[in-house]
């Protein structure tokens, strides 16, 4: 039965089909679980959309799976049920757990398996080293930040201090704080975020001191914490003294101290470089940033370390074709344009040197000098064996133990020495447990 009309129709379909190269071949879905809430989630989605629109072979499906700890548990549950996502964001304290899990597809291997030549040397050194093992990158750094110092310029001016002169040493932090409080420019000198990360982990790195034996755990599993040495007792002892006199106000763990700085109560704030976005939005005063304060001689001054999270590729996903898509997506994420976009939108540092050079060329750092601080501090010196990062088993619990003991110290129920000794004893037991598991 020759009907010209149906012939025409068939022809039309054929033509349409040839116009659409991926006809009948839907893009392969790549499952990506993350813990980025609020504005950060929106930016992640924007990057994902850019990637999906840039090619047609793969479609990344990103989904918010709760806070960091919830994302990890969800991924574990899914892995054990033999249906894991391809890509999962894990916070830095989970790094050793992931590395030893046997559940991962190392990023360096994934990239070379799928033919991507990545110039690892071009990554910012302390970012690369945090997630590397024996010189190979195991998870892709995603949101990385480092603690820096923020200060309220208006309060400085009101106290008769030079608002262009942030404190560079802890002695200055103390002296400036006293002057600020005496002149009633603020009711407290300084406050901090993430107590263990800023005051223990990074303070030690910044002074070139190890946090744990075995090169902070990079060189082996029989690790012990070293934070109760003379420097530790001195620094934490000072903090306790300042907490008592009100120069330092403890505002809780994580970011719960933010409003102390934002509402002008405390004039100085030691916080994640990624807090900048919201500070810009919520602070009604002039502010600026500086590198972390230092205790000066006889300690050296080297790069600080990062915190945040990285992207791990889980093996054993039901659709193995998608791994090529994971590699493409990770490659896409590390391009200077995407990194610059990520940095500008979120305040997390751009993880490669070319990306930072691009930001420099674009005049971004010149226009926003405060955003240069983190990068400058991380590249202050080449990382030493003590400042590559931290590789501790049971790190989630260890950080919790450290913060618990710091709280006891700040509350005055334990001396600095006692609290740090207890923290080390408890942490060492957790480290031994972890080593036993993988012996």
């Amino acid at each position, binding site marked *: 039965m020759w009907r010209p009309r149906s012939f025409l129709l068939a022809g039309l379909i054929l033509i349409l089909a040839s116009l659409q190269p991926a006809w009948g071949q839907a893009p392969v879905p790549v499952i990506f679980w993350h813990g*980025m809430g*609020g504005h950060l*989630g929106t930016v992640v989605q924007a990057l994902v959309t850019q990637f999906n629109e840039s090619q047609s072979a793969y479609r990344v499906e990103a*989904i*918010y799976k709760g806070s960091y700890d919830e994302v990890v*548990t969800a991924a574990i549950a899914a892995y054990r*049920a033999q249906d894991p996502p391809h890509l999962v964001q894990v916070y830095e304290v989970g790094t050793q757990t992931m590395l030893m899990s046997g559940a991962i597809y190392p990023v360096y291997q994934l990239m070379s398996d799928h033919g991507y030549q990545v110039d690892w040397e071009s990554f910012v050194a302390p970012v690369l080293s945090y997630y590397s093992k024996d010189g190979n990158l195991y998870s892709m750094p995603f949101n990385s930040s480092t603690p820096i110092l923020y200060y309220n310029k208006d309060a400085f001016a009101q106290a008769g201090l030079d608002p262009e002169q942030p404190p560079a040493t802890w002695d200055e932090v103390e002296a400036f704080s006293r002057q600020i409080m005496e002149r009633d420019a603020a009711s407290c000198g300084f406050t901090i975020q993430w107590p263990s990360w800023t005051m223990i982990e990074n303070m030690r790195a910044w002074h070139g001191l190890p946090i744990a034996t075995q090169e902070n755990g990079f060189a082996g599993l029989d690790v012990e914490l070293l934070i109760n040495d003379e420097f530790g007792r001195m620094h934490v002892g000072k903090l306790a003294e300042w907490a008592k006199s009100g120069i330092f106000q403890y505002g809780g763990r994580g970011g719960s101290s933010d409003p102390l700085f*934002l509402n002008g109560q405390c004039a100085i704030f030691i916080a994640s470089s990624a807090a900048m*976005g919201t500070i810009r939005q919520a602070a009604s005063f002039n502010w600026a940033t500086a590198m972390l304060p230092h205790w000066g001689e006889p300690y050296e001054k080297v790069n600080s370390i990062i915190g945040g999270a990285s992207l791990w590729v889980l093996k054993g996903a039901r659709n193995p074709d998608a791994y090529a898509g994971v590699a493409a997506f990770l490659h896409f994420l590390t391009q200077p344009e995407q990194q610059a976009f990520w940095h500008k939108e979120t305040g997390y540092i751009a993880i490669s040197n070319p990306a930072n050079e691009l930001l420099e060329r674009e005049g971004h750092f010149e226009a926003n000098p405060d955003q240069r601080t983190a990068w400058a501090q991380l590249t202050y010196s080449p990382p030493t064996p003590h400042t590559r990062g931290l590789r501790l088993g049971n790190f989630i619990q260890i950080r919790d133990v450290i913060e618990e003991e710091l709280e006891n110290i700040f509350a005055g129920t334990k001396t600095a020495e006692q609290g740090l000794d207890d923290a080390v004893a408890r942490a060492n037991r957790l480290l031994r447990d972890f080593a036993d598991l993988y012996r």
Partner: protein
Amino acid sequence: MSVFPRAATRPMIQPRAARARLKQRLGRLAAHLLLLVSIGIIAFPVYYVFVLSTQSMEEVVVRPTILRPSTHLVANYITAWSQAGMGRKLLNSLVVAITVAVGKIVISLLSAFAIVYFRFALRKVVFWLIFITLMLPVEVRIVATYQVVSDLGWLNSYVGLTVPLMASATATFLFRQFLQTVPGELAEAAQLDGAGPMRFLWSILLPLSWTNIAALFVVLFVYGWNQYLWPLMITHTEEMQVAVIGIKQLVNPELPQWNITMAAAMMTLLPPVLVILVMQRWFVKGLIESEK
């Protein structure tokens, strides 16, 4: 009924009655005042959430705290709505809450009926089996439960979201309490009329327990609506997530935007509160009332 000293047998004289009336009036005034104050205290936190949801971030953090609503209501709610996809999430919550509530009521009524109206070998065992499910929080066994649901192929589905939540004891416990207060004669009468147990359940007990069911519906709706961790674990697409996840999703881990978060919190707490308000009459009555 005379366990009390018989003091009121003497004839009352006038001034005493007046004093009593005054005392009564004062008592009522005190009751009004106390109630108002308590309600103020109970409602204040939610009022404050509403206030925060209308402020800009600068207003949120400023000191002393601003306790009046501000002008950013519309902007905050729109941001929350679109950023967390609240429309779809609220719909899912509704489906989950209703399914869980209805499902729980049906299976609990059946098992409570069996426990109260039958003698069978495993009666005690079954009762304890059901009761123990109150004892171990979801969080502890979540990885294992996930595996079961995954093996069933129920991940990322409404079945997976609801059926595992139906295993809990509260409703059975309550129905057991209700049924125990139903006079035994009713069942005996039904038997004399030749009605079987299911007929008895359907045409005698069910009509008697409508208020109870309505009250339980409120409790279980709220329970289902407020689930967080389980839905978070087993949903893998944005389209299947529920409203409480939306609230957390708006919390930026570095520096939270509390005004937006509170806007989502307001949206999420409205529906269960509405259910309570609408069903309030039966809620209070039906929690324990039984037809005597």
